[in-house]
């Protein structure tokens, strides 16, 4: 159990470091780093605060704490993946509309140039 909590702590700290480094290098935008930072902090808190993990275990009605930690981690990441799917879908729609608009504007511009020449 202690080893699992230590591994989770190490993983959370590593994730915090990678995300902060990526934000600093502008590899990831601040608004998208918030979800990852939140997830890392949540996992760090759960792994370093046994009463909190016990409370979560009782709340979920699970037999042991590692399972509660696993479920909490899985839930956090599933929600994040869903959120990013929503964002990607919006970006794709915007991207298609933008590409079409560029194509149409270029067409109109060429028509105007042909008309003038």
């Amino acid at each position, binding site marked *: 159990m202690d080893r699992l909590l230590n591994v989770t702590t190490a993983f959370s700290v590593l994730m915090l470091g990678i995300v902060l480094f990526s934000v600093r290098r502008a590899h990831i935008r601040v608004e998208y780093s918030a979800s990852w930072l939140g997830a890392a902090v949540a996992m760090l808190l759960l792994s370093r605060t046994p009463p909190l993990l016990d409370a979560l275990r009782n709340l979920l009605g699970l037999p042991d704490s590692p399972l509660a930690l696993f479920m909490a981690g899985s839930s956090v990441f599933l929600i994040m993946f869903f959120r990013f799917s929503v964002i990607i879908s919006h970006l794709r*729609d915007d991207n*298609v509309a933008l*590409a*079409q608009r560029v*194509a*149409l504007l*270029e*067409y109109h511009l060429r*028509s105007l140039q042909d008309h003038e020449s």
Partner: protein
Amino acid sequence: MHASGPDSLLIIVPAFNEQGAVGTVVRSVRACLPGISVLVIDDCSGDNTISAARQAGAEILPLPHHLGLGGCVQAGYKLAYELGFEYVIRVDGDGQHDARDIPRIFETLRTTGCEMVIGSRYLNGKDQHTGFVRGLGIRFFRLVLRPILGRPVHDPTSGFVGVNRRALGVFSRSFPLEYPEIEALVVLQRRRFRFEEVPCSVRARLAGRSSITAMKSLYYIFHVLLGVFVNVLKFDGRLHRGAGHSETGG
């Protein structure tokens, strides 16, 4: 290229890496319908599709990057709508559609007043160019669409489709991005628009290979089925809320 008169017609040809066929397609359309504008929408091909189409006398709408069939066709619909065309007929760039069927689709669009006319491969019996898996998929979607559309549709996956300006307005704002044919039919039906089918002949591709393989057919069925039900739920929900005429993005 400009719309002229109440019966202005534009032929759009979505094309992606069709240098071997698109020139023949454009020439055959222009031979059948002299004076009618042909617009080839190039979906960022890596070959000489643009020059082949231009040499054949088509107008070109090159897309800045690859959008897929739905995005490509919708770009053509948007341009046609902006230029004021009354009717648009889509012909595939692979040469499978016979340009001699276009006047029949156009005439049906004009005389019936329906919003969409589908060139159907199956009104005159079986199409010998349809593979086994694809044929099964088409039969499956006929069954699925029958209660949704309230009438049978023989060729729901046909890309040989004509639309009038009312449908053009809808498709300019909302059009499925992938595998658009079946979903587009549901989108129109939910707006109480009508469609007709006319028989048309289909040939083997002049060049290249179909992008829909046997494996992709299974994904196609899943994807389209999901899209159909999402559209049904979306529009039924809107009707229940009493806002049946508003438009949405696709």
